[in-house]
């Protein structure tokens, strides 16, 4: 209030601001007071999280000596990894990577083709019956909550070891994700197109075919591409349980500590994933209409 608080020459802004702190506190008390509840939350939640973390460490048997030993060994591994080289297995690795890409592509495509019709059942604006779309949604949830590797193990029991089991595993786990995503995309479409078709005498099937599908197709295509990208990653590890692709090499080479080859293989995977990333991002942008492909 008083003009005496204005900083005179030579005094810092900060001191000036702090000079009348007691006055400020009495005049604008509300800004300085922190409610007990929010203060308790600010201290209590982090404390609880940290306590839980320590408890977990105890329960899971963390020990400092094991960590230090492990870090020491990791350091040794890192030295053994350089320089990354294929040691004559470049062709074999490339074939396995091709297999991985094949698994990802076919798995994603199969899942998309199968999920597309079923997703309409789970969309509220297509099937108004609450029981049908509730059942469809919950089954998508159940399918989604089973990891790809678990699906792979189950399919290995049916079609035997090999990449085909991997395709089926990715198809299964993606079916759940696609079902959910597609049905959400269908629900988010503009209802006006469908109304227009009803107004000009179209039936329910016409509504779906001419009112809904043209609207959701670009969204769906971009989601499928996105999943193809992430499935290339999943397909690299599906070989860990024996369902084909580059994962089998990865497991084997890590077990026998051929770390130079491991490093090379990981680099190959990283490059492949980056290339797929790049291409599919371009395609997705083109599909949503943000940019040209070339």
């Amino acid at each position, binding site marked *: 209030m008083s003009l005496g608080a204005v900083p005179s020459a030579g005094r810092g802004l900060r001191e000036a601001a702090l000079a009348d702190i007691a006055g400020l506190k009495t005049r604008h008390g509300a800004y300085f007071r922190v409610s007990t509840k929010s203060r308790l939350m600010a201290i209590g939640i982090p404390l609880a999280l940290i306590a839980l973390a320590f408890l977990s460490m105890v329960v899971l048997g963390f020990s400092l000596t094991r960590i230090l030993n492990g870090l020491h060994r990791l350091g040794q591994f890192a030295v053994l990894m350089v320089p990354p080289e294929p040691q004559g297995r470049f062709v074999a690795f490339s074939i396995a990577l091709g297999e991985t890409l094949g698994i990802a592509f076919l798995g994603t495509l199969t899942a998309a083709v199968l999920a597309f019709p079923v997703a309409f059942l789970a969309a509220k604006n297509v099937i108004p019956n609450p029981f049908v779309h509730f059942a469809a949604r919950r089954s998508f949830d159940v399918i989604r*909550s089973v990891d790809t590797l678990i699906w792979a193990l189950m399919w290995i029991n*049916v079609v035997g070891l090999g990449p085909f089991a991997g395709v089926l595993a990715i198809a299964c786990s993606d079916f759940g994700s696609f079902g959910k995503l597609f049905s959400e995309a269908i629900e988010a479409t503009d209802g006006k197109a469908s109304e227009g078709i009803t107004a000009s005498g179209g039936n329910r099937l016409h509504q779906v075919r001419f009112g809904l599908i043209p609207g959701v197709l670009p969204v769906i295509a971009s989601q499928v591409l996105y999943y193809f990208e992430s499935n290339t990653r999943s397909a690299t590890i599906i070989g860990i349980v024996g369902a084909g692709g580059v994962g089998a090499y990865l497991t084997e080479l890590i077990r026998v500590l051929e770390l130079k080859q491991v490093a090379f293989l990981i680099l190959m995977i990283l490059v492949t994933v980056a290339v797929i990333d790049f291409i599919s991002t371009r395609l997705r942008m083109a599909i949503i209409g943000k940019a040209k492909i070339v």
Partner: protein
Amino acid sequence: MATAIAKLPEHQAAQLAAAYDKAVSARRMKGLIVAGIVLLLIAISAQLAHVRPLTLFANLGNFGSFIGKTVPVLTLGNFPADMREWYWNFPKWLGLLGQTILIAYLGTFMGAIVAFCLCFFASANLARSRWTRIVARRFLEFCRTVPDIVFALIFVIAFGLGPMAGVFALAIHTTGALGKLFAEVVENIDMKPVEGLSAAGASWIQTVRYAVLPQVLPGFASYSLLRFEINVRGAGVMGFVGAGGIGQEFLVAIRNFYYSDVSAILLMIIATVILIDIGTEQLRHRLIGMEGGK
């Protein structure tokens, strides 16, 4: 009174029809080309992934009978005893599930802390030099591109069998995934409070504490919860490579054809994942609500 629609003169109508046909055929052509490319890719992938539809159809019955065999004998008259037989190892499985959740929690917690520390260096608006930003970004990218289970494979050899390897593997992957999302949250903040604080002479750390944190914390918490959900699924399969959790038990059951164990464990995994999904979703909605209220 119905009004007649004026008919177009013959030559004009023909012209329009020709233009329409041309447009349609161009679209058709484009569609055919895309379909051709996709078919070609399918053929190549099928070759690479050794797809054998005949085996699938021949063995589809196997899938049915596999599922059939995992269904336990449950009779109404003897229900409690049947249940007890089906879930004969319930306490151990429950303990392993608890371990799985703790692995996911600790992995998320550690990963989130590292991501929190790194995200300010990786975001375009707060990083103080271009180089810290590039280094931080590349590091995060590496962490999330290598699948967590590959890290787990390496860590199992370094740290020994057990949950510790799983926790570190999840933590690294979480760092990569959350670091990127956190950095994006930071890049989307309102910069006015930051400018105000730097104008008042606050240090970089004070700026982050008082101008950035209040804006980003709800977003960070929401993403961390989402990641926790994903990590529960990830921790469920860590046991496949010996990195703790319920996965090991599931692998043993499915490899040794302990049919009813497979269904018992799988149901427990699904139930846990769905429960955690529901729980985190509730929490996230409340967090987003808090953000909107402010």
